[in-house]
Each structure stands twice: as C-alpha cells, then as structure tokens.
C-alpha cells in the first residue's frame, strides 16, 4: 500500500508493563491476557491517516528485560517516535522511567518524539502512580503524556496517532530533513516532497543545522 510517509516507532519500558499488548491492540484490535515474554525485538505495522495523508507506522516492540537492554539499544537509531510505557499499578516501573529516558536520549536522534504512557489504567483500584505524577514527569522531561489501557483499548489509538501527528507537525515545520532516513521517516511514493522548499524559512534552517 502506498503511503505519504513512513514513521518508525519504538516501544520501550520495563518488562510486563504491556508494550506488546499495546502494539497488538493497535495493530490487530485485540487483547491477549496471557502474552509470552518478548524475546528480542518484534515489529508490527498499521496505516493511519493524518491531515488526509496516509501514513504507515512501523512499530518496533522491544523486550523490557534488563538482559535484553543492549539489543534494544541498537534499535533506537532510526526511530522517529518512542512510546515510553510504565504500569500505573507498579511503582517501580515508574521509577525506572528516568533510566529508559537516558537510554533514549543517548542512542536515539535528538528530535525523536517521545510519548509517555501510563498503561493498565483500567486497573484503577490497584493504582500505585497517580495521573498527576505522570503528568508532572512528562512535563519535566518534555514528553507527551497519556494514560491508556491495552485491555479496554482506551487511548491506545490516540497515543499512537497523537505521536504521529506530532511528528507530522515537526515535518511541516521543517525540523527534519526527510530525505535522511536516520530520522526514522521515509517519504513514500504517494508522498509529497518535504518542505525543503521552505515557506517557513527560519524554522527550516534551524532544523537543518542540528544533527
């Protein structure tokens, strides 16, 4: 299928926070209560539409276990967006966010759009991290924030699409050189050339010099 842009995403976060389930809910619209531990890095894809343009999301679902951390790191490069996931019922997964963020900042490109997701918000009675804390963390680190549930599908669609919309906006603003695939963005056949023609000159040149 033809697309205007292809965005590469990566999903990161502690083991068991529901990364694979979020992906499965987004790509297949189903929930698997018992999910095998992800060994390595798998991927899924789906088409979405933003601003009437078909956009393909290629999503890399990583293993959360500490022992797979080095493999996961090698997938950061070339990702345009990241979903950083924690489990609102397990405090420690929230506490580890900083270390995940450090990984991302170190190995991904600086313009990567990061969405913070507090997953399992359907389990409100077991909540261990408040929504405000999540919001606060996101605000401090310049992330977009949402609470979601892979089980009920609440906010799953929104999280992926909002991230895509943010990336799309950055393209429109000329933050990315879309011809450089290391940003995790590919222009498709049905696509439009990037705004290199630059109506909005200042921001385009500002994006050009950051590498």
């Amino acid at each position: 299928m033809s697309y205007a842009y292809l965005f590469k995403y990566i999903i990161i976060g502690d083991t068991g926070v529901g990364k694979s389930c979020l992906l499965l809910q987004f790509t297949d619209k189903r929930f698997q209560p018992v999910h095998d531990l992800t060994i390595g890095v798998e991927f899924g894809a789906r088409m979405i539409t933003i601003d009437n343009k078909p956009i393909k999301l290629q999503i890399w679902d990583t293993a959360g276990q500490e022992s797979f951390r080095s493999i996961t790191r090698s997938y950061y490069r070339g990702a345009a967006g990241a979903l950083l996931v924690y489990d609102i019922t397990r405090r420690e997964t929230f506490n580890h966010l900083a270390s995940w963020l450090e990984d991302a900042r170190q190995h991904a490109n600086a313009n990567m759009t990061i969405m913070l997701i507090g997953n399992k918000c359907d389990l409100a009675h077991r909540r261990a991290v408040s929504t405000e804390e999540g919001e606060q963390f996101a605000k401090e680190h310049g992330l977009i924030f949402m609470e979601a549930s892979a089980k009920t599908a609440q906010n799953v669609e929104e999280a992926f699409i909002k991230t895509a919309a943010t990336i799309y906006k950055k393209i429109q603003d000329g933050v990315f050189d879309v011809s450089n695939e290391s940003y995790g963005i590919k222009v498709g056949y049905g696509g439009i050339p990037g705004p290199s023609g630059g109506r909005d000159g200042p921001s385009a040149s500002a994006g050009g010099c950051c590498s």
Partner: protein
Amino acid sequence: MYQWRKFEFFEEKYGAKCAIPEDDDVVEKKIQCCSSGRGKVVTGFDDGVVCFFDRGFKFNYAFQPHSSSVLFLQQLKQRNLLVTIGEDEQLTPQQSALCLKVFDLDKMQPEGSSTTSPDCVGILRIFTNQFPEAKITSFLVLEEVPPILLIAIGLDNGSIYCIKGDIARERITRFKLQVENSHLDKTLSAVTGLGFRVDGQSLQLFAVTPGSVSLFSLHDQPPRRQTLDQIGCGLNSVAMSDRSELIIGRPEAVYFYEVDGRGPCWAFEGEKKLLGWFRGYLLCVIADQRTGKHTFNIYDLKNRLIAHSALVKEVSHMLYEWGNIILVMNDKSALCIGEKDMESKLDMLFRKNLYTVAINLAGMTIKEYGKILIEHKPVETIQILIRLCTEDGDKKGLSNGVYMSMLPSPVDFLSIFIHHPQSLMDFLEKYTNKVKDSPAQVEIHNTLLELYISNELNFPSMREKGLHLLKSAWPPETEHPLYDVDLAIILCEMNAFKDGLLYLYEKMKLYKEVIACYMQAHDHEGLIACCKRLGDSVKGGDPSLWADLLKYFGELGEDCSKEVKEVLTYIERDDILPPIIIVLQSLSRNPCLTLSVIKDYIARKLERESKMIEEDRQAIEKYQEDTLAMRKEIQDLRTNARIFQLSKCTACTFTLDLPAVHFMCMHSFHLRCLGDNEKECPECAPEYRSVLEMKRNLEKNSKDQDRFFQQVKSSKDGFSVIAEYFGKGIISKISNGSASGPRSGTVSSTSGF
C-alpha cells in the same frame, strides 16, 4: 533465562544408526563440504573425492573431480548439475591451484573398468590477473534462466568474485563486488555468508562479514551497494528464510534483514555454530558458553515455541533432504530429524491444554495444504474446515466470546478454494448456517454474493439464492446491510442481475434507478406497477417518477397508447401532475402517439378546470360585493349620525330605561345588564375577538418560515399555499400598517346622563 515452551514436534528418523558409511576408504578422510538435492546427499572430501548417498545414507557412487581437496560444492536443483571448487595440480607456480568445475550428473562417462564419473562440462580458473588470489570463505550458486548460472565466491578480504553465464559454452562475464571495508582487522572483513534474493526482475545479493551486512543490487549497472548494518557474524551462521529474509546468528540474538535494513530479532543466547531455515522453522545449533555442550533447537517463531530441542555432538554441516533435516557430525555420524505428523502434534498440545497454539498450528497447515486437499477430497476438507472454524466439539469451559475470537476466520481460508468455487460455496453456506454472528460476516456475504451472482457457476437456482441473501442480510430495521452494498450493486450490474439490482435500488431509495432499470428492460407493465408502488408521496414515495415515466413514453418512439392511457388514469385519479402542459410536452415528442390517446384526458381536465375557474369567479364576485358593503358601512359610520331607536335591551329584552348604553353595532343595553363590562357589545364581542385572534395567528405564522415551506412541500399543489399566504397579506407586509380594517363594534357609548 526465560525460554519458550518446548515440544517434541520432531523426531529422529532411520534410527540412531545413521552415518556416512565407513568403508576403508572413508575412515581416514575428512569431510570438507556437503550439499544435497534431487534425492541425494553429496559430500566432498579432503582427498578430492565426492561421494553420493541415497535415502538413508546408502552409498550410491563416488568420483574424483579434483586431485587434492574439494573445498566447496553445491548440488543444483533445476538441472542435475554439480558445481565444485577444489585444488588441482598446479600447472605453473604463478597460477593458482584452485579450479571451479561443473559436472552434468545425467551424463555419466565410463572411466576405466569399475568406476564411473559424470561428464565435466566446464572448468574455470577462479583467480586470474584481474582477480587476484585470496582465501575463499563462502560460495553460492544461483540458477538463473537455464543455462545461465550466477556463481558468487566470497573472499577473506571482503571481495566477492562473481561469475555469470553459460559455463559449458564458456560464455561468461566476471565482476567483483566489494563490501564496505571500514575494518583494518582482516578477520572482520571476510565474507562469511552470502544470500541471493530474487523478486521478479530484481536480483539482490546479501553479503555478511563478521562486522557488517551489505546488500548488492545486481540489476543496477554497476551493482549498487547498501550497507544494512554494522554488525555481522562468523562462518556457518547465515541463512535465508522462505520469505527471502537474510538471517544471521550472533551470540546475543538471531537477526533478520529485509532489503531495507534490519528487521526483528530473537534473543536466543549462545554462540551460533550453525543456522538454518526449514519449512518455516528456524534451526540453530547453539554452543553453551559454560558447559560447551551443543544444543540443536528448532524454533517456531510464529507460535513462539521450541518445536524440538536436543543435545548433539559437534555438528559440521546441516542439510535438508528426504523431507528431513540432516545434521552431519564431525565424526561423520549423521542425524536425520523429521517433523511428526499433525495429529500427534495436536495431540501433544491438547494434552497440555494449549488450544490456541493448536488452532494456530492446524490453521497454518490447512492454509498450506488446503489447495491440494480441496482438489482431491473436497467434502472431507470442507468438514475439517468447518470444524476448525466453528469447533462445535468440546469447549472445555471456555466462555463462548473468548472462544470465538480464538477461532480462525473462514476468510483466512478463501485462498485455498481459488479454483473450486462450488466447494467454496458449500463451505461458506455451511459455515453461515452454523455461525450466525461471525465477526467476518460481511466478508463472507460478499464472497457468497460473488459466487451466486457471477455467471461462473451456471445453475438456475443460483440467482434465487443470491436474491434471498441480498434480502435476508438486510434486516428491515437496519440502515446498512451485512454486505458491501456498492460491491453488490457492481456485481448485479456486471452480471445483468435485474432482480437483485431492483431490490437494492429500492432499498436504498434510489427510485429513479429502479425505474431506469425497468425502462432499460422495456418492461412496461413492471414499470407502471413500480411507479404505482413508489410514486405515492403519502407513503414516502417520489411523485416525480410519474413525470419521468411520461417523459420516457414520450421519447419511446413506438406505439404505447395503451400504457399512456393507463398512466394518465392514475395521474388523473391522484392528481399527481397538475400542470397539463407537462403531460402534453412529455408526450408530444413521440410521433406514434396520436391525439386520441389523450383526448379524453384533456377534455375532462379542461372541463374540470373551466368549472373551477367559474367557481373562483363567482367567489370573487361575492367577496367584492361583501367588501363594497363593508366600505359603505364604514363611510356611513364616519359621516352620518346614528340614531339609536331600539326600545328594548338586547340582553334582557325588557324595555330600555335609563341609564342605558348604545353600541355602534346597533345594540342597546341596560347599564345594569352590562355589568362591569361596558366597553364592548357582549353580542358582537365573541365574533370580533375571534377575527382579531385569527389575524394575530396569521401574522405569527408568517414569521415561521419552516412551517410555510413544510406546507408548500406537503401540499399537492404548492401554488395554492403560496397564493393563500399572499391572499392573507402575510407574505407582503403592505397591510401591516396602522390602518387596520373596519372597527366594527368598537365602543361608542352614550350614557343617559
């Protein structure tokens, strides 16, 4: 370390005593290389001998293609050729001893008395002046369109020498590819693995070194190189999947590559001694870091399970032949491992209550072999599929909802019926009979409609079934049917399925399309009946159909007096098309219609209308007289004095006495009879008030546009509504001034003193 569930879906075949036969000759020799194909396993030894083995490692024959060592060999599949690389005697010290030879195994040439050897159809020196010598680390032959071969030879310096052409006729070209050489360390630049990827016209070559993965696009001139990754792997840990992905094994994980770069990876830990791909399974010989022991694992990546796992001796080669995986060990023993049959696999899964896995497994297999099954045993296959998709057997306490979502959808199996529409119909009908609320209902209905309506299956009852499905899958209270309407219309249209089209158009309220259908078919009877049904605005129909109908008859160009007469009767009866002109205009275009057809209609119509005109005229006259009288009265009231001569009270009918009240309407009352209300004449007040009320109402309504339009629309004759509004002075605001009509009955009281 987390691991997948382990199963024993594979077993050893031919017993444990499988080995490269050890006659006196073989004992001393070392196996250098192995290949297989066309029912044979081929080994190359370090003394230049090549041995062929039949099923079960029965020695077939041997010959000596090279004088010292056979380094690489490959048995081709399309043509019975064997390509070998080996050392021969050096003719001159400058020339390399390495030769590439191609043997035609179908042509045996008697050599001496006892042995036979195949015909050597080509000999090439690998290294020449332009292609200097280096150590060969990998070798791969691709069979292009016969007789063209493409031979890739990977070297330890990162070069790949390619030889392409018809070697038997010595029509060849040679070219060199070079991987990106960022490593000074020579051990990191050796080409350890090669993989061809053919996709239509495009031909690409993956090349792996310990420090990189590259892709060469060979259809570009010169070949274009792309570096896909900065990691790589050593010897023997490169394979191609059946979807033309490159697979490399590293100690931390197994990585997959597509042409656009690195794909998924699986973190199976341990040094990968050998890597392979067999019927959708990933094969790995893994060395344990601590114990040093070797494990052979077969992974089912789709179902996330280990389909076989066994400790093995040191494996030197991995082959696929006789439907099995063959592991050749360093000690020349061999292990044949074959897949168990589906039944025993499912049995194992059921025993462990792993139904989801079982269903996935069965579904995948059916998809793979279904086409063949359908061809030979259609009835049984359909039964299996039905059972698979509905699983009406034991549900083992699973709730129905969960169960349904686990079952494979029948849509997944449509492709296996590609040449058997009859069976497909059978299957889908049976399925829909069993499962009423399938999530794939729309797709199933679409497919069924396609089967019913398309002319492919020529049975008379098909169309009835199609119509029945069209109707039954569109419950009356729902807005959308359980199939794709557009698709259904296209189907009906393409296959000239009139009944279906009519039903759909009518359901979608596309009445014009409905009558267009009848018109196309020249079905006049149906056409009129249909207009009667759909042309009644009271029942939500569209009266303009009648106009279209007349227009059609008018343009028909043939005699249709009977029909026109009939239509006119209906039009006249329900007064559908008031302006006579439209009727005449519509019909006047048909030269075959004579005036006699419409004479009666027109005569009646004219008569009625002139009668109406006459009535209107009389009404106008009457109104004019009334108005005149009123004007006169007003004039009278303004200019002349009124003499109140009434001697009796209008209320109590007794003789008037003082104090008395006289009203201008010529009613007089005792003051006591009037009570408190002495401002208006109690006799005339109700009428006066109702007139005022009416006027107020009309004025209010005139501001309510919606009501006006609604009235115009719902009335048979919109003109009369508009005319009425004008007549009441509501639309034009002229009369809304201060000069309101005659003030009859307003008070002008006199009281006696």
